[in-house]
């Protein structure tokens, strides 16, 4: 017989259990069953180490000691191969000759593969085809993969690549998405959302304003580049270790490329050194290539893209061209109009269908648009295929309406905040242009008014106006912008998750789920959920790597949904196990006296408690587990969750694509040197809605990190291609993400209290990965505010993004010129 581990601690070591916490948790459990909005009745802890605590990241100690292993840190056999890739040197053309003899003869080279060496599928497009693993003959962007070299060292492989003879019949590259859209060169069909008679509104509106803007893309700049390690297995398959947000899809693609069943491929992801969307679809090709080589050579194979290659080969946040034509009344309240968003998708669909959809879903941000048409176009250009990035098109869509809010405010001579507030969704104006009702209607009003007050908006507004009137060169700007962001995958089937929970006989718990950890604290939150459900300390719950052989057919960790979906699946598994153990305990313990009262049984602080008060019976968790094992009760459970309620009909362009909305608002203040274009963000105040936070420390980390990343997108992060289609900002020397000194001197971040999610999400929390990113729009708006002061706030300056010092300076110059020559430098009619 199996011997059981001796357990530490005496049975009654922890006698004092806070009984309110039990009540609180019961109340909580009850609440989660309901659907309606509830007041927040539990504001603090539910027992040690459980959910709602600011627990440190599960890997924090490993991070700071260097023990946390990323893909390239994993040991591999001494004969492991290193792969370097050969890239297209032009953006568009036909590959006429690929001479690889000298590559093969280069020192250390073991294998060289091209298109013809792919055993199975040659296209690795995630949803729609269009992404060949290697170029066959059509070249669609500079940096597209032509061939792969495996050698016994990384240097040898990289050197061998330079020995290739490549001949290409080069064609002119199409790099302008607006021109491409005019020529109707699209990667997917155009989609239109319409509500009401927008044409008539435009004809009859007292005021009509039109504007146009370019919103730049963004490189993910995950600190750990694309990387994978693939080992052949003893049958026909492979095991793939990859820095990857979507292991299940990589499993599928690797199997298809190798032409083997899915069960022959196991994909494992322990952690990523950052993902941000860049490893949702774009981590797969490297795994497929390494898998082919691993199978051909029988050797473990490693791929790690050098930074510049990573930046050229992989897609980015979509740049957008947005246009609006909107009618409004004398108060600046929108009546309706027409909005077009054109996403620059790069050469293939990738996820662009859903990304441009999301831009369209967020073209209203927090405002009721009235009767409106929103059109989304997906332009095809000769650049890498643009992909998911935190916000997934939402930020680009919001930019158009935030621009309009500023422009309308200047037109009607009001403060932009006043106009924004007048336009917020409110009773009677609570249906979006795609037909979803906005449920927590007052929440955003509350957030804005609390923030207005805590940030002292109006007093500062006055001080800034006075300052600007006197200061000839330095101009200050201030802006408050809200965020309303829809939570759920817009592809309905992705809104599902699974979890696998094991309890071992020493009482330790292992949880696996389909989500991946990229720094967002998902694993920490899921451990907290399990600990809370089982009444354990976090230390007793461990999470191991995400593996396709533990939880199958998972969705990507994306759309901010990681904790919502996987947390729920883990909760399902844990509560099943808890109920099973309690059922067992009820009959097993105290059997002579007819067992324990099942109703009064609960797990708290590592103890099974029966009954109340001083007579309560307490059985340590470990003892319970061992008894259950001996009683032949299964100590393993699998959980599942699918999001209720959601649907969207692309035919009618109506539905409820989002389970709920997450909200927030921010106020930014900037100082701009109008002679040089240099500026500083001096103060930022944020109030953000995460429902009832699962882990305030992690959530605040997401809010702050998202904000700064968003600020980088709108200010210094400039992607530049030359006329030949070569990305010239291809490394951190030329592509500038925010650095330490860009952190605003005053940075007040708070989570909105007292507003649990109105939907029955995990413990009434809300998703937090993406929504805060868009809080940074206030920085851009504040820059425009500062510039607008050059015209005494009469004009709204054109300011494309990223608003680099160059763009800010040139905008300032043009406003000054206009003042001198009396011409109109305004971008709006």
């Amino acid at each position, binding site marked *: 017989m199996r011997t059981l581990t001796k357990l530490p601690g005496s049975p009654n070591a922890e006698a004092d259990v806070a009984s309110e916490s039990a009540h609180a948790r019961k109340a909580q459990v009850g609440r989660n069953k309901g659907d309606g909005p509830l007041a927040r009745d539990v504001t603090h802890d539910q027992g040690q180490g459980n959910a709602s605590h600011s627990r440190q990241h599960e890997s924090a100690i490993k991070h700071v000691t260097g023990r946390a292993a990323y893909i390239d840190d994993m040991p591999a056999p001494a004969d492991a191969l290193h792969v370097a890739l050969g890239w297209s040197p032009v953006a568009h053309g036909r590959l006429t000759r690929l001479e690889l003899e000298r590559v093969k003869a280069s020192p250390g080279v073991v294998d060289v593969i091209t298109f013809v060496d792919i055993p199975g599928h040659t296209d690795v497009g995630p949803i729609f085809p269009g992404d060949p693993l290697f170029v066959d003959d059509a070249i669609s962007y500079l940096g597209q993969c032509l061939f792969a070299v495996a050698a016994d060292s990384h240097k040898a492989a990289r050197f061998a690549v330079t020995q290739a003879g490549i001949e290409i019949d080069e064609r002119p590259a199409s790099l302008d998405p607006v021109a491409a859209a005019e020529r109707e060169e699209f990667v997917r069909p155009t989609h239109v959302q319409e509500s009401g008679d927008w044409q008539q509104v435009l004809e009859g509106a007292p005021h009509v304003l039109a504007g146009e803007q370019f919103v730049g893309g963004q490189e993910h700049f*995950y600190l750990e580049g694309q990387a994978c390690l693939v080992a052949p297995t003893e049958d026909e398959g492979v095991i793939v270790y990859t820095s990857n947000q979507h292991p299940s899809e990589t499993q599928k693609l690797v199997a298809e490329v190798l032409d083997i069943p899915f069960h022959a491929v196991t994909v494992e992801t322990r952690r990523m050194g950052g993902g941000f969307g860049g490893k949702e679809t774009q981590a797969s090709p490297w795994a497929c290539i390494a898998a082919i080589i691993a199978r051909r050579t029988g050797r473990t194979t490693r791929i790690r893209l050098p930074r510049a290659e990573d930046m050229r080969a992989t897609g980015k946040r979509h740049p957008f061209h947005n246009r609006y034509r909107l009618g409004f009344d004398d108060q600046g309240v929108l009546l309706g109009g027409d909005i077009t968003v054109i996403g620059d998708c790069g050469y293939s669909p990738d996820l662009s269908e859903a990304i441009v959809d999301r831009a369209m879903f967020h073209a209203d941000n927090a405002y009721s648009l009235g009767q409106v048409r929103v059109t989304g176009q997906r332009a095809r250009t000769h650049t890498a295929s643009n992909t998911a990035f935190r916000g997934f098109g939402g930020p680009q869509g919001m930019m158009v309406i935030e621009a309009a809010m500023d422009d309308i405010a200047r037109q009607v001579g009001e403060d932009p905040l006043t106009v924004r507030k007048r336009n917020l969704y409110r009773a009677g104006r609570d249906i979006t242009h795609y037909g979803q009702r906005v449920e927590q209607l007052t929440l955003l009003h509350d957030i804005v008014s609390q923030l207005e007050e805590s940030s002292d908006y109006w007093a500062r507004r006055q001080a800034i106006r006075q300052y600007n009137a006197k200061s000839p060169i330095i101009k200050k700007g201030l802006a408050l912008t809200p965020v309303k962001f829809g939570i759920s995958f817009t592809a309905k089937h992705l809104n599902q998750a699974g979890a696998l929970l094991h309890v071992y006989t020493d009482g330790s718990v292992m949880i696996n789920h389909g989500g991946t950890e990229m720094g967002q604290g998902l694993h920490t939150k899921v451990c907290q959920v399990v600990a809370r459900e089982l009444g354990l300390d976090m230390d007793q719950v461990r999470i191991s790597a995400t593996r396709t052989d533990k939880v199958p057919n998972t969705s990507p960790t994306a759309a901010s949904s990681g904790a919502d979906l996987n947390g729920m699946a883990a909760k399902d598994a844990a509560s099943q196990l808890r109920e099973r153990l309690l059922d067992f305990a009820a009959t097993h313990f105290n059997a002579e006296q007819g067992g324990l009262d099942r109703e009064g049984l609960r797990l708290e602080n590592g103890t099974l408690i029966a009954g109340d008060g001083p007579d309560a019976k307490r059985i340590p968790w470990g003892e319970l587990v061992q008894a259950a094992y001996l009683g032949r009760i299964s100590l393993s459970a699998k959980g599942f969750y699918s999001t209720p309620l959601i649907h969207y009909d692309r035919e009618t362009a109506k539905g409820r694509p989002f389970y709920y909305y997450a909200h927030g608002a921010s106020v930014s203040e900037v100082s701009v040197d109008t002679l040089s274009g*240099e500026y500083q963000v001096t103060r930022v105040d944020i109030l953000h809605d995460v429902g009832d936070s699962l882990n305030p420390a992690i959530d605040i980390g997401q809010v702050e990190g998202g904000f700064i990343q968003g600020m980088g997108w709108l200010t210094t992060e400039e992607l530049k291609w030359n006329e030949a289609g070569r990305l010239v900002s291809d490394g951190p020397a030329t592509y500038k993400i925010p650095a330490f000194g860009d952190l605003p001197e005053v940075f007040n971040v708070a989570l909105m209290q007292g507003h649990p999610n109105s939907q029955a999400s995990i413990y009434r929390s809300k998703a937090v990965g993406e929504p805060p990113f868009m809080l940074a729009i206030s920085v851009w708006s504040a820059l425009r505010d500062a510039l607008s002061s050059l015209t005494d706030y009469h004009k709204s300056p054109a300011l494309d993004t990223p608003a680099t010092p*160059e763009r800010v300076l040139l905008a300032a110059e043009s406003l000054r010129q206009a003042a001198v020559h009396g011409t109109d430098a305004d971008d709006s009619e």
Partner: protein
Amino acid sequence: MSVASSNNNVADPAMIDFYLNGKRRQCADIPPDCSMLELLRGPLGHTGTKEGCASGDCGACTVAIGEPTADGSLNYHTVNACITPAHQAQGAHLVTVEGLSRGDALHPAQAAMVECHASQCGFCTPGIVMSLFVLHETQRTRPAPFTQQRLESALGGNLCRCTGYRPIRDAALQMADQPDTHPTWADDPSLPGAVASLCRDVMGRTEGASPGHYTIPRSLEALRELKRERPEARLVAGATDLWLETTQQLKPLDDLIDVSRVEELNRVEAHPEGWWVGAAVTYSRLAPLLDAEFPAFGRLLHRFASMQIRNRGTLGGNVANASPIGDCPPVLLALDARLLLDGPDGERDMPIDAFFLDYKQTALKANEFIRGIFLPRSEARQLKVWKLSKRREDDISAVLAAFAWRLEDGVMRDVRLAFGGMAAIPLRVPAAEAALEGQKPDEAAFAEAKRALRRELSPMSDVRGSAEYRLVAASNLLERLRLSLDMIPTDNGMEVMLDAYAH
């Protein structure tokens, strides 16, 4: 490559002999172009130090190097292991993220990072921990308040894509409240002495190693001799420019002469007419002189690269590299600096104006090297240095302006207006200088100078800025100069530039 960790003293010049986290390590057959990061992650199996870019820009590879000081202790500074030659570890104490904790007890830098929730994905974390470690060490030996500027300078070279830096700032401020745990190697009082004696021996035996290797001369004489024997060998000082050739362009670097330990090139000498700065003096060592004597130049250093780069990079390397967007050449032009070139054929002195010939071409002969840079002293001279770049910290200039002049009876004299980023070489703009020379700093004179500037300069458009922006900005910097000279500042003393950018 092979690695040993013994105490024998075989004199193999290609062997790198150093201390790693308190333990003596000897690594044989390390190629000259191997970086410290490759050495650590490869043969030494220390994968805690990460590679994020291999170009010195992200700081994920930050490690600390302890060098023996005159007072018998070890002085630690941060470096980017990805672009530091492995051979520069010779005789030093290298500290990596693996070497900080004491068993399970975390170093204050680590403990503060955990407590402040300052790691998310954790990939930048080892580098950040090392920058904090050095900040903590510096604080122990030379305590000073943690001002925003000090924190920026300590952490500006470490990018973090996840956290937004607020918790990292908190961790820096909170380190001092952590229990004073230190690694076991720090208990060993003999370590600094051992490192110092290893450094002496190693330097003795690597002197004059054979070609095809990495040679580290210690004297001017030896350097001249090496330049005679191997005129084609590349010189390396801080490697902060040179190493990118191997990591980014895969060019071979198989024959190197390291000037960083040549005694004569490491001196700063004060003379009545000015200062001779040895070409191999790093920015970090130069900073005190600049702060005291050329404050505008000193302040530029806060926006020059990052701490990691300033700890290794040299003025000599910046001048020899002759990049049109290098930050120091325009300042040296404005200061009327001189260069001392040296080599087997003897030394020669030249004004810096004569040094830059064409794009990345200089007056330096193949067998020559820069020995020193002379910074002239002048009581009356005024200097302004303004750098424009996309990001305030650790970015390369789109435009760098260095203006020097003196005021004599209300008129400007000895006006020198120099720019970087405005042509293929760093240069002065004589017509604009002439427009100001002998004039009052009034609007008319400056209007003429600006016209001359626009006439004479035709900058490029590139990834850092368009030609139009560069021209407008350069001319506006002249306007800024006028405004800052305006004795009755517009209205009631309103600023004409942002404090954080002021030089």
